[in-house]
């Protein structure tokens, strides 16, 4: 009996050692191959977007270089936050993810909760990563938080106006516009001008009495698709949500004007189903050639130029959101405190953010964050519009750096959706938004 007990205890001890080895991360074995992370698996959570696909295409280089295996779990954006939070609250070294990508509006939340590792020491001793290589607006948004560096910018998703250049330069349409408005057609420089152009472009192309081509493809789905889209209208019309000290700066006057303009665009120039459209549906309308323009991420141009995904190849161009100031968005690489392999994760960041790898990603269609990649001759030769995009990224305004930003997006999405549905007025919506923004502000 005693013998059995000893065997049982020994088996339990071995099992617990094995389990704790799994939980604490694997020890690098450099003896056999000389590769620093041979036998280590780096688990990463990422969103299913083009830039993630480009990283996946590059992975074999890192694996060859270091011996580590990189396991990227690709998720739909809507699922990421709820899956990340329980992992981030795990004890130090015992989470499931070694490395994560952080959306800009989770930055204050994650850092206020103390879930991310500060990277300053690692950056200081790094030969490949220097923070001044990044555009300042990107570092401010997905790099630093209250003076410390917790992330390195991965890709930008500054929003811009993507439009059909073939139609914009079509002499027949130009003539028609001149006859109707008594002036030459031009890219809109304000939201009212954009509404006018979008309405003009909305039409029945096959003469069956039904509108089948829309001036604007829009995404009214709650919460983030509509909230992100609306903020471009707000910023372009001179509004903001908070100042840098976290005081609410949204005013009834500008807020209502921007919301009225947004709802008007959706009702007069967007497909009728737009109040329920998310990103994919709005994209599909543009890719099928059924819309003139789309306020969206600047990196949609390479995607819309892909013949496998689009019927408008070579027809799209990008410009700043009418009014000049759109919403800046971006993701940053970060190592959670719960990361079982922070050293391997940092080695991956150093590699993935090195100039050559970042440039290669940009050439594949990725959205740069480093100034030297934006200005690289090869990159500009392939994507001449990146010089415009660099300016858009520099001029855009990020989502407020508030620790309860996901809830602010939720409230924003709700009041916009209720206004579109007609259950509240734009005045009531903005009043609710101001009240909630004050309640949710970091104190």
């Amino acid at each position, binding site marked *: 009996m005693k013998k059995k007990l000893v065997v049982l205890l020994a088996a339990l001890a071995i099992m617990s050692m094995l389990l704790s080895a799994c939980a604490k991360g694997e020890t690098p074995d450099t003896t056999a191959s000389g590769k620093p992370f041979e036998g280590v698996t780096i688990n990463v959570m990422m969103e299913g977007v083009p830039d993630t696909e480009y990283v996946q295409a590059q992975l074999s280089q890192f694996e060859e270089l270091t011996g580590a295996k990189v396991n990227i779990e690709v998720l739909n954006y809507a699922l990421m936050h709820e899956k990340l939070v329980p992992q981030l*609250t795990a004890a130090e070294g015992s989470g499931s993810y070694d490395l994560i990508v952080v959306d800009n509006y989770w930055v204050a939340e994650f850092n206020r909760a103390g879930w991310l590792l500060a990277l300053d020491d690692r950056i200081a001793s790094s030969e490949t990563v220097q923070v001044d290589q990044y555009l300042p607006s990107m570092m401010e948004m997905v790099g630093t938080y209250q003076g410390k560096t917790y992330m390195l910018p991965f890709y930008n998703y500054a929003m811009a106006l993507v439009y059909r250049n073939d139609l914009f330069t079509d002499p027949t349409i130009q003539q028609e516009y001149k006859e109707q408005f008594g002036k030459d057609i031009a890219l809109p420089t304000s939201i009212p001008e954009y509404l006018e152009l979008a309405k003009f472009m909305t039409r029945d192309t096959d003469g069956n009495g039904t509108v089948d081509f829309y001036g604007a493809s829009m995404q009214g*789905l709650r919460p983030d698709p509509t909230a992100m889209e609306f903020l471009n209208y707000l910023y372009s019309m001179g509004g903001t949500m908070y100042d840098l000290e976290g005081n609410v700066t949204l005013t009834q006057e500008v807020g209502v004007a921007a919301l009225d303009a947004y709802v008007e665009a959706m009702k007069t120039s967007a*497909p009728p189903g737009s109040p329920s459209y998310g990103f994919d549906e709005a994209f599909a309308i543009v890719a099928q050639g059924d819309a003139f323009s789309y306020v969206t991420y600047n990196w949609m141009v390479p995607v819309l130029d892909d013949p496998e995904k689009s019927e408008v190849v070579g027809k799209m161009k990008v410009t700043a959101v009418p009014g000049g100031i759109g919403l800046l968005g971006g993701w940053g690489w970060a190592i959670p405190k719960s990361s079982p392999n922070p050293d391997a994760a940092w080695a991956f960041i150093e590699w993935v953010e090195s100039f050559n790898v970042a440039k290669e990603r940009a050439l594949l269609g990725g959205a740069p964050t480093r100034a030297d990649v934006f200005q690289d001759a090869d990159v500009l030769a392939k994507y001449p519009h990146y010089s415009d995009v660099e300016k858009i990224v520099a001029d855009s305004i990020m989502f407020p750096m508030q620790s309860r930003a996901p809830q602010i997006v939720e409230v924003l999405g709700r009041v916009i959706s209720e206004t579109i549905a007609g259950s509240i007025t734009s005045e009531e919506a903005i009043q609710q938004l101001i009240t909630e923004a004050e309640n949710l502000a970091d104190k």
Partner: protein
Amino acid sequence: MAKSSFFSNLPKHDQQTARNLVVPAMLGIWVVVLFPLLYALYVSVHDWILSQGGIGSFNFSNYFTVLKDPLLLNSAKNTVVLTISVVVLEILIGFGLALLLNNKGIRLRNIYLFILLIPMLMPPITVGLIWRLLLHPELGIINYVLSVIGLPQPLWLATPNLAMLTIIIVDVWHETAFIILVLLAGLTSMPEEIYEAAIIDGASSRQKFQFITLPLMAPTILVATIIRMIAALKTYDLVYILTRGGPGISTETISYYIYKVFFVALDVGKSSAMAFLLLLVIILMTFLLMKVMQKTEQNY
């Protein structure tokens, strides 16, 4: 008086073995069900927003605060509409189809049954995504077919009054298969002799249904109703995929709202209080339905 236990009818030497065998299962239940439940009860009376630091002070008023939340009350109203609609429709349609499939003479019966059960095999997320594509106003096949035959093409998910009806239709499509399966099992196990006696007594088909099938099936129907009702009260996946609670707040259900208070606002205290209130409602409704079931059985 000797205290009776679960094992008192076993021989004495087997009682200890039985206890030993049950202990791991009991421990498992404690660890995965009771402990989280009790912990949730504990946090439901505390202030705790996950991103703002650790668990805060005791605050029983969480329960009163959430009951005054107009968005929770709106989602409760939507949940009641959704639950009553889907349970009634699914029981009516499911019972009708189960009666048809119970007819042994029907040709290709198993093939019909298999086809009808396919929706049940799909996860709700898949169902939501398929229907979202089917219902797309510009690119979906449903509005295309409606346009071909000259009917109006509704904005299924973009119209506030229609979006809830759309969710109900999709839920009925998905969940009726479960009702068919349960009720068909009940119908199949009914004794033939009673029907034979009724035929000898000259009972009509309507009388057989009214006085034999319905009373004997009542407990099965009630069980199916309870299971579906509990599931419908917790509807989350379809709303999440199809509408995210929109347009406006017209399709926001309680479970979806609680999910957002927890995972988006990270308000552990209030979301736990809401979850406990929902649990109470579900327990109460289940209890009431079981009482009705007992009464129904007594009446027959």
